[in-house]
């Protein structure tokens, strides 16, 4: 029983949703690593007011969120352009259907679970008498890990099913 879809299926590769998740993962991971190194370097050379260390970290986190939003918008734009330019049989979906929404929901759940675990860890550090800046750093790391966990789990759900 040979159907016309078989030729599309045999193109193999990734769906648009999977490419979008992978693009997000790669750009986010690179951004997190580079930004963390930059902030850490500034911290090490003392390029901040020690009396306002918590403020320094707070600003660094807020700036990262803003940069990440811009980077992700640009990534999705370039992905959409690249996808439309590439000569392919298949038209990329222009909407989120029930499966996409369910995968997104499960990914968000996993993000919150990972972030929650990291948050508890930061509270344990605070309760153990560590400085507040350590707590902030742990929350920062928990945010990154949570974000990457959610996106990675979405990729798994798309590839292997739910």
């Amino acid at each position, binding site marked *: 029983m040979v*159907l016309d*879809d078989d030729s599309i299926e045999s193109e193999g590769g990734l769906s648009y949703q999977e490419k979008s998740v992978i693009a997000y993962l790669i750009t986010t991971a690179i951004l997190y690593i580079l930004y963390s190194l930059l902030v850490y370097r500034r911290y090490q050379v003392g390029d901040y007011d020690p009396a306002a260390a918590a403020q320094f970290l707070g600003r660094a986190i807020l700036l990262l969120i803003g940069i990440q939003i811009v980077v992700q918008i640009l990534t999705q734009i370039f992905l959409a352009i690249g996808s439309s330019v590439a000569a392919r049989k*298949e038209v990329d979906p222009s909407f989120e259907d*029930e*499966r996409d929404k369910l995968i997104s929901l499960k990914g968000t759940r996993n993000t919150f679970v990972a972030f929650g675990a990291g948050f508890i860890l930061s509270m344990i550090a605070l309760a153990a008498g560590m400085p507040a800046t350590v707590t902030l750093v742990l929350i920062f790391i928990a945010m990154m890990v949570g974000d990457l966990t959610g996106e990675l789990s979405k990729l798994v759900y*798309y590839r292997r099913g739910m």
Partner: protein
Amino acid sequence: MAQSSVSNNIRKLRFYNGEMTQQQLADKVGVTRQTIVAIEKAQYSPSLELAFRIARAFNVPLEEVFTYDPEDDPA
């Protein structure tokens, strides 16, 4: 691979309905082609509403499209 306990005859039904493509079926029931692929591979169990829309697209009862096998149910 995560397998659903609900199996289906969608591929066969598409073939017998004028060799309907996955994209055509997806357009008829309002989902993406990737979702139809996932359903056919039993990697995703559609919602009740979507299941009924698929059955209606083929003009057959629900039971002719989907089969539930309790032995495959992990619960």
